[in-house]
C-alpha cells in the first residue's frame, strides 16, 4: 500500500480498532463500513452458502463414505465398466460439441464482426436466441428438427422417400448441445474479435504472409482467450446437462442420465452421490484450469444449463 493511501486513510477515519476482523476482510479502504457493518452485509449470503451449499455437500461426501464400499465408492466411476463407458461417452461427446461449436462460431463470429451487410444485426440477434432456453426446450427443438415429424425427416422423405430421424439417440443429443452452445460461443468470439487490431493483419499481409499464416499467427492468437473460455463453458455445460437428454430419451447413457437412474430407479444413493461428486469435480477442474490459463474473469459468463 502506498504511503499516500495511508494518509488518506488516516484523514478519513482512524484505523480499525480491532485487528482480527480487519485482517479477515483484507486491507482497509477509506469510506467503507466498519467491520461489524461489513459482516452484517455479508450475513445473508454467508448463511445461504453455508446452510444450503457447504453443509449439503459435506453431508453428501460423508454419505458416500458411509456406503457399503466406503471411500472406494468414489472410484466406482473408474472401476465399474458401465460407469466408465458412460464417462468416456460423455467426455467424447462434450469434447466433440466443444470443438464443433468453436470452429463454426469462430468462422461465423469473425465474419459477422468484420463485414457490414443488410440483415447482419438480425442474424446476430437470431444466433443468440437460445441463450437461456432450458435443456428441455432445447431437446424439443431437436425433435422439431430431427424427430419423427421433424424438418429433416420431411425433406429427406420428399427427396428420397426415406425419413431421416436421429433425434432420439446420441446424435440428437450432440445436435442439442450444439444448439445450446452456439449463442454462448458466438458472443465470446464476437467480443474478442472486436478487440482485434485490423492493422496487425494489414501489416502481416503487406509483408507477404499468405491468408492461412495470417489466420494462424495473427487472428487465432487474438481470439484465443475468448475461444478457450467459451469452449470451457461449453464443455462444462455439456458434461452436466440433463434436461436435453431427459426430453430426447431416457436410455442415452450420458453421465447425468446414469446418475439420475441410479438415484430414482435403483435408489443407489451412495453411488449416485459419488458419481455426482466426480462429475462436479471434473467440471469444476476444467473451468478452474481455464481460469488459471486465461486469467481471471474468463469464465464469468457461464449461463443456463441444458
Amino acid at each position, binding site marked *: 500500500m502506498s504511503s499516500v493511501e495511508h494518509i488518506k486513510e488516516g484523514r478519513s477515519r482512524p484505523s480499525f480498532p480491532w485487528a482480527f476482523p480487519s485482517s479477515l*476482510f*483484507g*486491507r482497509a*479502504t*477509506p*469510506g*467503507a*463500513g466498519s467491520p461489524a457493518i*461489513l459482516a452484517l*452485509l*455479508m450475513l*445473508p*449470503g454467508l448463511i*445461504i*452458502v453455508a446452510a*444450503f*451449499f457447504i*453443509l*449439503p455437500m459435506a*453431508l453428501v461426501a460423508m*454419505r458416500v463414505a458411509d456406503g457399503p464400499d466406503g471411500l472406494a465408492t468414489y472410484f466406482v466411476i473408474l472401476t465399474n465398466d458401465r460407469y466408465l463407458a458412460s464417462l468416456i461417452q460423455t467426455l467424447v461427446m462434450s469434447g466433440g460439441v466443444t470443438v464443433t461449436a468453436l470452429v463454426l462460431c469462430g*468462422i*461465423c463470429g469473425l465474419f459477422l464482426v468484420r*463485414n457490414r451487410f443488410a440483415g447482419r444485426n438480425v442474424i446476430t440477434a*437470431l*444466433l*443468440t*436466441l437460445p441463450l*437461456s432456453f*432450458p*435443456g*428441455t*426446450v432445447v*431437446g*424439443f*427443438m431437436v425433435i*422439431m*428438427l430431427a424427430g419423427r*415429424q421433424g424438418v429433416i425427416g420431411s425433406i429427406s422423405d420428399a427427396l428420397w422417400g426415406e425419413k431421416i430421424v436421429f433425434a432420439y439417440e446420441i446424435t440428437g443429443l450432440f445436435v442439442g448441445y450444439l*444448439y445450446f452452445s*452456439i449463442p454462448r460461443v458466438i458472443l465470446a468470439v464476437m467480443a474478442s474479435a472486436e478487440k482485434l487490431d485490423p492493422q496487425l493483419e494489414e501489416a502481416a499481409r503487406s509483408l507477404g504472409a499468405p491468408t492461412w499464416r495470417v489466420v494462424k499467427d495473427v487472428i487465432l492468437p487474438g481470439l484465443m482467450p475468448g475461444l478457450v473460455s467459451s469452449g470451457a463453458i461449453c464443455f*462444462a455445460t455439456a458434461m*452436466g446437462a*440433463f*434436461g436435453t437428454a*431427459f*426430453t430426447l430419451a431416457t436410455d442415452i447413457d450420458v453421465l447425468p442420465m446414469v*446418475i439420475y437412474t441410479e*438415484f430414482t430407479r435403483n435408489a443407489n*444413493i451412495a453411488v*449416485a*452421490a459419488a458419481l455426482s*461428486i466426480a*462429475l*462436479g469435480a471434473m*467440471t*469444476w477442474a476444467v473451468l478452474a484450469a481455464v481460469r488459471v490459463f486465461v486469467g481471471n474473469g474468463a469464465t*464469468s459468463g457461464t*449461463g443456463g*444449463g441444458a
Partner: protein
Amino acid sequence: MRRDWKFYSQLGLTIVLCLFIVVPVVMSALAGVTVNVFKGLSSGLTLRWVFEVWDLYAQSILLSLGIAMACLVVTLVAGVPLAYVLVRRPSRMMRLFEELLTLPVAIPGLALALALLITYGGVSGYRSSWLFILTGHVLFTLPFMVRSVAAVMAAMDMKMLEEGAASLGAGFWRRFFGVIVPNAKPGILAGALMVVTLSIGEFNLTWMLHTPLTKTLPVGLADAYASMRLEIGSAYTLIFFVLIMPLLIAMQALADRGKRASRRIDTAEDTL
C-alpha cells in the same frame, strides 16, 4: 470492399447456422397454433391448444413466475451487499468465498439437487413446499447477481464517491443506499434480468426438487413433451417463448447501451 467467394461461403455458413437455430423455433411456434400437426398448416390455425395448456398448466406457470420473483428478492438482498464487500475489501479469504459462491454454477444441477435432497429431504414441510425449489434457484442464480453487480462496482470510483458522501456527513447506510446502490444500478438491473430469466427456465435442479404439487414451468414442459400430443407441447413452448422474449430483448438492449456508454468514455479519453 471486394466481395469474393470467401465472403459468400462465410455468409452461406452463417445463414445455415442461423437457420439451424431459427427453424425449430418457428416450427414449434407454428405447431402450437396448428389444428393438426400431422396434416400440416392446411388444417388451419387455432388458439385452442394455447388455452388448453393454460387450463392444464396455469398453476405451474404462475408458480414459476412467483419463484422467479422471490428468487430475485433474495438474490438482491443477499447479492448486492455481498458484491459490495467483495469489491471493497478484496482479500484471499474473500476470493475463496467467491469461489465457493460460484461453485453451484460449475457443479451440475443434478449433483446440487442430490445434495439438497439428502440433507433436507427429511424436513417434510420444507421439502414439499415451493421454498425447496426456491433454495436451489437462489444457489444457482446468486453468483450471477454478485458477478454482475461486482463488475459495475469495480469499474466505478467507489472510494471517491464514498469519501465525498462521508465528508458531507452521510453515515454508512445513507452512503450505501444513496450513493453506492444508485451508481451500481446498471449492474443490478442486468443481474436482475439474468436471475429472473435463469429462474424461469431452470430445469436440472428443479426436476429433482419438485413434488407433484410444486411443478414449475419447465417441469410442466417436460411433462407435456413426454405425455401430451405434439400440439400441446408446442403451444406450451410458445407460451414459454412469449414469457422469456421480453427479458432477453431487455438484456440485449442493456448490454448494447453499456457497450455504447463505454465506447463514449473511450473516445472522450482519446480527445483529452
